[in-house]
């Protein structure tokens, strides 16, 4: 009995090491997504291309879409843009959320780099961003046909992220839509 008790500190140490080891793989900057499984928040905002008419969440209801949060001041968005162009070319419907940006600069960006978006919500104050819990652009939300957020990615969506996190779910949602 006493001899076994000598191993208690070792066991505690091993347990702690295991917990810390598992923690190594986690990204501490990533927040849990509270919006997954919830309806996309209601909004009524101008679009990037024109002051009028306003766009709302009803404008993409009935479709499986990606909502992509971007801005011209966001460096990682530059890296992400070609992938969005490619997805759009494959027929994926992408809605842009231009977040806390300048209208003229954002329009110039799309003219220069190509426009993968069906339309862009122009959220100059970041109000919709707060409702979405956005804390760093780019962010991408997969929204199903009934307007429920099904997946969220904080950070760049590249080939690997699309294949591992989005593709299967997206194809399943598209399949159930038809």
């Amino acid at each position, binding site marked *: 009995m006493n001899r076994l008790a000598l191993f208690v500190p070792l066991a505690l140490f091993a347990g702690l090491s295991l917990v810390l080891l598992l923690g190594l793989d986690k990204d501490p900057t990533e*927040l*849990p997504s*509270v919006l997954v499984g919830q309806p996309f928040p209601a909004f009524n905002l101008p679009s990037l291309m024109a002051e009028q008419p306003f766009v709302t969440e009803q404008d993409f209801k009935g479709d499986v879409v990606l909502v992509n949060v971007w801005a011209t001041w966001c460096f990682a968005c530059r890296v992400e843009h070609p992938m969005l162009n490619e997805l759009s070319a494959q027929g994926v419907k992408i809605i842009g959320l231009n977040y*806390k940006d300048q209208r003229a600069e954002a329009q110039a960006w799309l003219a220069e780099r190509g426009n993968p978006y069906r339309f862009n919500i122009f959220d100059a104050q970041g109000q919709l961003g707060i*409702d*979405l*819990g956005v*804390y760093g652009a780019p962010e991408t939300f997969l929204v199903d046909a009934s307007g429920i957020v099904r997946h969220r990615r904080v950070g760049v969506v590249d080939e690997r992220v699309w294949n591992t996190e989005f593709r299967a779910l997206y194809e399943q949602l598209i399949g159930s839509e038809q």
Partner: protein
Amino acid sequence: MRLAALLALCFSALVFAGAEVVEFSDESLRSRYQDLVEELRCPKCQNQNLADSNSPISKDLRREIQRMLEEKMSDREIKDYLKSRYSEFILYRPEVNKNTWLLWGSPVLVVLLGGLILARLRRQAKPMVAKGRDTMANDQRRLNAMLGDEDNRP
């Protein structure tokens, strides 16, 4: 004098932090605002509260909190509003639930464990002292025998 200058340097950051002027219709909201921005965490930063952080998202959230205070929302409602968007991450004082009970309970557990260990050590310590006395008495007896002193037996 040098110490005073050093102290002044230490507090200069606080002066800057206070540079952002927040206007309230009712001055009583100010202390609630101050408590909230100090207790809520900046979602973009790892270890700063909303009061300390200069990031754009913190500025926006401070503005939101000010707006909600003006709209007569309670502290509870404001925290729930932010929690439903940014998850529990934003609360520096997390609620007790199935994910956090260990966090909240661990101080109590550690104190209980410490008490248990202490109690055990005390129980074990007594026989050791008694054994020590025996040894001393034996030594005395041997010493007496060696010295041949019959009268001073313990």
